[in-house]
């Protein structure tokens, strides 16, 4: 119970918010809009899982937003050219993995600091895409939206996919040795190396995996509408890092689990629609987001101070 204190407190905060909404704005709980909200957040959840793994490994990747945009637009263009949908999915994942591998090479291979590397790749991908696309939408062929299924079927498919991925990854990080390697490298890379783990390979794989997940998430977003906005994914890195941090993933690495990330994501995703339902003005949104992030981190800090004091 104590071990999952953080994750439970975030879930608790989420429940408090939902209760407040139930009292003051019960309209929030209509099934159709809720379904839409969850569907829209499904791609974000996928990326958040990948980002959590990177952070647990003591790295960070702020280029995911740009990667998302590149994958979305490229996949859209391929689909518009007639590439069948399954192949488009594969292509998007491959492109994402490729960009992730570039990050991984620079961070793990050349031992460059991840925040700066991903800062550079973020800017490079974003500006290249902007230059090439100049804001033009990509029109998707019929049959792309909702994977050719009906809207509810498509929405549930996306949500279930995200949940399955979440559960699979949560189990994998706990039970697969590869998953444990990530925690080990994130806690102490040198000790991991002495124990026979290869930290550089692990780091590389984690970045590549995040890239692949971004590619998947980009496709999951693309199939939700008949057009691709080249600006999609804007602000994604902030969203997923905040979700991870609020959900208990430690920036110093080695700690955190995906269920906490899930709770953190839901909490942060509720803010905007909650404000609309509670008739709070839109300009409060950023301030509230920042406050939640700070509260989460402060709570962490206070708790660890108490712990270190009690342990002498």
């Amino acid at each position, binding site marked *: 119970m104590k071990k999952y204190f953080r994750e439970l407190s975030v879930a608790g905060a989420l429940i408090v918010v939902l209760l407040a909404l139930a009292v003051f704005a019960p309209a929030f709980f209509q099934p159709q809009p809720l379904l839409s909200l969850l569907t829209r957040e499904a791609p974000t959840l996928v990326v958040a899982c990948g980002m959590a793994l990177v952070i647990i490994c003591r790295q*960070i990747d702020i280029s995911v937003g740009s990667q998302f945009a590149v994958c979305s637009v490229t996949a859209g263009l391929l689909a518009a050219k007639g590439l069948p949908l399954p192949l488009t999915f594969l292509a998007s994942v491959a492109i994402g993995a490729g960009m992730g591998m570039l990050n991984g090479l*620079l961070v793990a291979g*050349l*031992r*460059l*600091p991840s*925040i*700066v*590397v991903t*800062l*550079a*790749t*973020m*800017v*490079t991908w*974003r*500006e*290249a895409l*902007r*230059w090439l696309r100049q804001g033009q939408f990509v029109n998707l062929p019929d049959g792309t939206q909702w994977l050719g299924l009906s809207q509810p079927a498509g929405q549930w498919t996306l949500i279930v996919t995200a949940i399955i991925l979440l559960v699979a990854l949560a189990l994998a990080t706990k039970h697969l040795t590869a998953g444990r390697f990530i925690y080990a490298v994130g806690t102490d890379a040198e000790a991991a190396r002495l124990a026979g783990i290869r930290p550089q390979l692990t780091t590389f794989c984690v970045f590549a995996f995040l890239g692949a997940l971004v590619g998947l998430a980009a496709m999951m977003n693309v199939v939700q509408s008949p057009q691709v906005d080249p600006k999609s994914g804007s602000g994604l890195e*902030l969203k997923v*890092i*905040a979700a991870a*941090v609020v959900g208990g993933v*430690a*920036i*110093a690495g080695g700690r955190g689990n995906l269920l906490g990330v899930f709770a953190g994501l839901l909490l942060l995703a509720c803010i905007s629609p909650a404000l609309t339902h509670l008739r709070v*003005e*839109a*300009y*409060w*949104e*950023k*301030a*509230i*987001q*920042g*406050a939640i*992030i*700070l509260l989460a*981190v*402060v709570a*962490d*800090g*206070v708790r*660890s*101070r108490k712990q270190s004091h009690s342990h002498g």
Partner: protein
Amino acid sequence: MKTAKHGFKASLLRHETILLFVVVLEWLYFNSVGPRFGSVDNTFNILRHSVEIGLLALVMTPIILMGGIDLSVGSLLGLCAILFGKFWRDMDMPIPLAAACTLGVGALAGGLNASLVTWLRLPPLIVTLGTFSLFRGLAEAITRGVDTFTNFPASFLFLGQERWLGIPAQAPIFIVVAVGIWLLVHRTTFGRSFRAIGFAPEGARYAGMPVERRLAMAYVLAGIVAAVAAIIYTSRLGQAKADAGMGYELFAITAVVLGGTSIFGGIGSVHGTLLGVAAVAILKNGLFQARQPEEFADMLTGVLLILALASSLIPKMLASLKARRQTSFTKPIST
């Protein structure tokens, strides 16, 4: 044996010297390609456009040297800008008083970062990520997004827009802050401890250095300088808006890292940061004068950053090659 730190050959290979060459090369290249590039007007443009970002980069250097980071400086610039406008317009303060109050706000905001990082020992990346959102959010909330502050008196606008004794009026402030921070970091014992703290915080603590206090001071200083930058920005633009300074923190970090300061702390210099700011500013302006699109300049900056990072590995690789050659005669005892 002469230590590798000194000596002409070693100084050639230092990061800052290479960067200086890069800056010179950039200058020469753009001078030949852009017809108006080297003119006084253009040089002053480069200077005037870089002052606020330069200030942020300068003040981020001690923080990063100590192993910290501050992502909130750009948002703080925006918050200070609109508060400055509010103090002057809605509270009828004369400009100097409004400026002083704004500096106070900057110090308080820096203090918030400082207390969370030093007192609660929270990771600076996340704390300043939170304040990055919070400060910008407060700026938007205070102005309800729509309010802007303009019609400042001409005497105030002089600071950002006119020339004083032949050079842009904000330049003296920049020079004073630059020299001040350089002296602080490189010539005071106080500042010299920054690198020690960044290199090995525990060791520094054992050595009796007040690590937390110094780190806190660096964050508060960052807040004050961000406020100064906000005032100059408002004067240059003639307008204070909630989205002022968006993206500045990333540019500042780029300049600092380009200048040879390690993001992990412990290594770096203020003159490196200045060179980093110059390198990026000249690159952007030069490409503009050469009629290249803005996106291209940003992309090149990203590539330049990676090259700079990778190039700092070269001395390490050379050193490890040398070490390997030296120890090749003595084989380790096999287990």
